[in-house]
Structures are given as structure tokens and as C-alpha cells.
């Protein structure tokens, strides 16, 4: 067995590297650069029941070592994804995680039921960072009970394992993780973006027309590592980690924190070859560190007495 292979619920990953949802479209653009079968998996762009245009532009802004986006879940809608995008991806030997979004439980359930039937969709990724219009815009991802209920409902209909994507914009990430684990989640993916904002001094207005956006990139990596470190010790389902990953070293830092696979988002925009480059560099890095198989790295940093004391500053 390859020293990079990882087996996760629903997913046999030839390596634990996959592009993160929303940062890779449905793969077509990156297929110009390399064979997508090289990837461990692909997390496709969020799919909603109906097509969405998303937010007005500008939709991205730069921050120090990070970027903000407020794409607003633009996607062609479930039907077109099933008709065009997934069949096209079928030419590659790579499992797909379908990122499912919505603004009410029924939307999620509908998309999850249908998209989980696609032959190359090996798992769902529930994007619970969107506002729940029914409960007044409070995100599914910030109230454990609401997230758990959604997870349960989606689990009931999904034909493939369900990973829940956690939002970092919460007081207690461990509570969220435990709630969705308890509700039947097969795995976690984390973290989604932190909410942030930039203001243009010349216009006096927020740079993004949506005003706030999701902060991604290297700036957020320490927050992701901390949350994965805490959550991985509190749950027994695997975690796909993400947030600012750019190098093979970053991947191992995620594994050490407790992740079992890693997704690469923003870095694809900076270097379209970043995923295959990381995959190529990982074995050498494992050699340097004297590690046989990457799975040995999972949770290396936990230590014996892994309780953390947040008496910082």
C-alpha cells in the first residue's frame, strides 16, 4: 500500500490531498494543468437545489496573507451539476465529495438525496456555514442543535457517508463537532472561512459589495490547526483539515494536529499546480522525518496530557 493512501468513510484516497470546495470549480479549469486522477479526491463547488448567481461583484478582496470572498454560492444548481459536471468528472479516477448547501433543511435534504446517487460522488460535504433563512439568518453552523438536526435529516437520505463542514465562527467548536458526530456524521471537514471585512479608504466603502466575506489563506492556518487539535481529541470520526495549506509541511502540521486528510483552497489560485506539487513532495518530507506512512502522523502533537488551557495573553 502506498505510504500516502488513506481510507476514510466512503473514500479510498490514493493520497490525502484534495482541492477544497469553491476553490476548484468542478475541476475543468485545473484539468488544463494536470491529470485530475492524481488527486486524492475533489471537493466540488457547493451545489444548491436551484441555480444561484451569487453576490454582486467585487466578490474578492485581499488581506494580509489572506483573502476574503463573498461569492455567494454561485452554482448552476443541482440539475445541471448532475447533468453536466459530475458526468464530466467521471472520466477521472478520483472520488468526489459533493459540497451541499441550502437555505432551509428541505433544500439540503433534496440536494443530498439526489447528488448522493451520482456514481462518482463518494461522500457529501455538508456546508453548514450558510444562514438559515427560516430561523432569521442564524447560520446552521453556529447552533449545535440546529446543525445536529440538519445532519440527521441528511444522513437519513444520503446514499454515501456525510462529512459536515464546520464553521470556525463559533464560541465552542468542540460542542459543534460533538453534536454533529452524535447526529450521525461520518466525518468532519474544517474549517470553513472566518468572517472578515476590508474597507477601501478611497471610496470609504467595504471592498466587497456584500460588505463582509469569508477569510481564507495562510492567515487562518493557526486557527484551523487549533480547532482540529481540539476537535480531533473529542470525536472519533475523521477530520479533513483545511485553511491556508500551501506546502507539504503544512499538510503534516494538519496531520500532527489530528487531521486524516487535507484540502487545499486558496493556494490553487496562487499556484494551479499546488496540489500535485504537494503530493509529489510528501514522500520526501516523510523520509526526512523518518515516517513510514502518513497515517502515523495523525495526532502526533496530542501528547499524553492533551488538555489545553487557553490562558493566552
Amino acid at each position, binding site marked *: 500500500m502506498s505510504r500516502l493512501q488513506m481510507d476514510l468513510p466512503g473514500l479510498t484516497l490514493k493520497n490525502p490531498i484534495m482541492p477544497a470546495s*469553491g*476553490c*476548484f*470549480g468542478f475541476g*475543468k*479549469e*485545473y484539468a*488544463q*494543468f494536470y491529470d485530475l486522477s492524481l488527486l486524492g479526491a475533489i471537493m466540488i*463547488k457547493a451545489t444548491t437545489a436551484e*441555480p*444561484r*448567481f*451569487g453576490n454582486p*461583484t*467585487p*466578490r*474578492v*478582496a*485581499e*488581506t*494580509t*496573507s*489572506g*483573502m476574503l*470572498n463573498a*461569492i455567494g454560492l*454561485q452554482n*448552476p*444548481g443541482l440539475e445541471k451539476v448532475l447533468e453536466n459536471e459530475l458526468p464530466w468528472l467521471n472520466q477521472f479516477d478520483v472520488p468526489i465529495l459533493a459540497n451541499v448547501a441550502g437555505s432551509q433543511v428541505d433544500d439540503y435534504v433534496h440536494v443530498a438525496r439526489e447528488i448522493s446517487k451520482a456514481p462518482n460522488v463518494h461522500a457529501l460535504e455538508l456546508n453548514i456555514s450558510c444562514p438559515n433563512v427560516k430561523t432569521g439568518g442564524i447560520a446552521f453552523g453556529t447552533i449545535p442543535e440546529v446543525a445536529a438536526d440538519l445532519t440527521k435529516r441528511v444522513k437519513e437520505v444520503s446514499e454515501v457517508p456525510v462529512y459536515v463542514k464546520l464553521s470556525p465562527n463559533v464560541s465552542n467548536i468542540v460542542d459543534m463537532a460533538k453534536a454533529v458526530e452524535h447526529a450521525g456524521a461520518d466525518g468532519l471537514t474544517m474549517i470553513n472561512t472566518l468572517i472578515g471585512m476590508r474597507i477601501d479608504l478611497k471610496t470609504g466603502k467595504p471592498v466587497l459589495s456584500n460588505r463582509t466575506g469569508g477569510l481564507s*489563506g*495562510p492567515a487562518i492556518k493557526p486557527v484551523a490547526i487549533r480547532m482540529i487539535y481540539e476537535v480531533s481529541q473529542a470525536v472519533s470520526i475523521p477530520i479533513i483539515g483545511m485553511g491556508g495549506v*500551501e506546502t507539504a509541511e503544512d499538510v503534516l502540521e494538519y496531520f500532527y494536529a489530528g487531521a486524516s486528510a487535507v484540502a487545499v483552497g*486558496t493556494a*490553487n*489560485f*496562487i*499556484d*494551479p*499546480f499546488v496540489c500535485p506539487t504537494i503530493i509529489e513532495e510528501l514522500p520526501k518530507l516523510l523520509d526526512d522525518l523518518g515516517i513510514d506512512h502518513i497515517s502515523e502522523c495523525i495526532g502526533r502533537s496530542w501528547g499524553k496530557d492533551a488538555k489545553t488551557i487557553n490562558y493566552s495573553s
Partner: protein
Amino acid sequence: MIKKENMVVVSQRGIAENIFELILEGELVKEIKEPGQFVHLKVSGSTDPLLRRPISIANVDKINNQFTMIYRSEGLGTRVLSSKLPGDLVDVLGPLGNGFPLAATESGETALLVGGGIGVPPLYELSQQLVANGVKVIHVLGFQTSSAVFYQEKFEKLGDTYVATVDGSCGEKGFVTDVIKKQGIIFDTLYSCGPTPMLKALEASYHDRNAYISLEERMGCGIGACFACVCHTAEDPTGFSYKKVCSDGPVFKVGEVVL
């Protein structure tokens, strides 16, 4: 094909206030197809600035594998770019997007090229190729003020060239649209690149003409994957139909997309 290459700086010089002309050399030049395409630059190995910067291709020298960009040093990224010296490397992703359709103008016809500020550069390569095709070119170039004007003589060598400045410090005072009307310029095709208000003014006057405009939008990936740079299409101005400036554009037929 889109390439990613560390290209070598051949030369860099200031050609107007805060405006730099940068010549890069590398294999990527072989892939450039049309005037109006752009490149996406990573100006440093550091994570700050994090994102690439889109800059148009202003001149292509296929023999020497070189191309020229002209850009305004403004924010962090372009400021870092302007510090590059001959021999330094710049990480270039490109060529990107679809440029101006040369075939839209036949030999013997007249093309009007209208540029505004840092929208002027891609018109230079376009103009040269049109002239090589036997097209008569007329340029109307708008700038803020005289210190911002660049490449005037170069354009003059290719065809009639009118410069307009907002403050009247060089050429005519006013906007490019004023100049076109005042001079009574007659043309078969219109090609334009510049700030959105300028493009909107052109669209208002020439929406029924054979006109092509190049758009600007904030970009993430530059290759069509992130949905940062979309615009609505004109036949479905509030619906789901869209175009991506980076991969469907940056050049569109006038009236194709909502400005």
C-alpha cells in the same frame, strides 16, 4: 495553452507618473494568441501580497520570446512589481482570457481604438496587429492629466492619435467620447479598454455597432474556477446566466454583458 513560468525581467522603466513598462522573457510568450489577453502575476515569493495581479499584454515580441506590460504602481502588489530589476524573476500565469477579435475588421476598413488610463496598454499590440492586417487605425486615448500620458508617439506612428485629458493639460480637455464626437470620427469597428464609466459611455453611443470592450474585475484564480469575476449577460440581466471576465473575457462584444 496556459503556462506558469518564472520569467526573466529584461527591462523595467518608468514611462509616466507611477506608470512602468516592464519587459519579460520566456517560453510563455509562444502561447500568446490575441491582443487583449492578459497575464496573472505573483510579484513575490511571500504571502503578502497573497494573490496574483492581472495585467494586460501590451506588446509581443515572438522572435525574442519577450512581451511588454504597462502598469500603474498603486497598491502593494504593483509597488513590489515596480522594484524588479533586470535579471529578476517574475512568476507569470498566462496567457489568459480571450482578446480582441482581429477578424472583426477587414483589411481596408477603419478601426477606432479607445483607451482610458491603464486600459490603453493592450490597445498597442492590437493596433500593431490591425495595421499589419491592412486596417486603418485611429486612436483616442484618455488620461487623467498630462503626467499620466504614455506611448503617445508610439500610437501616432501607427495611425491618427487623439489624446484627451480630464484637466486639459495635454491634448483635448474632456473625455474620450467628447473627442470622438467632436472630431466626427468614422469607423467600422470599435475596440476599447478602460474604466467602466468610459465603457458605459461608449456602450450608450455605440451599442448597435461592431464594438468590443475589455472589462476589469477583481479576480481570484484568473482561470475561471473561483467565480470571483462574473458578470450578468445582457439577455438575462438579473438571472443565472453569466460570463466570467477572466476566461470568457476580458473582451466582450458590446451589449453581450451588463456593465
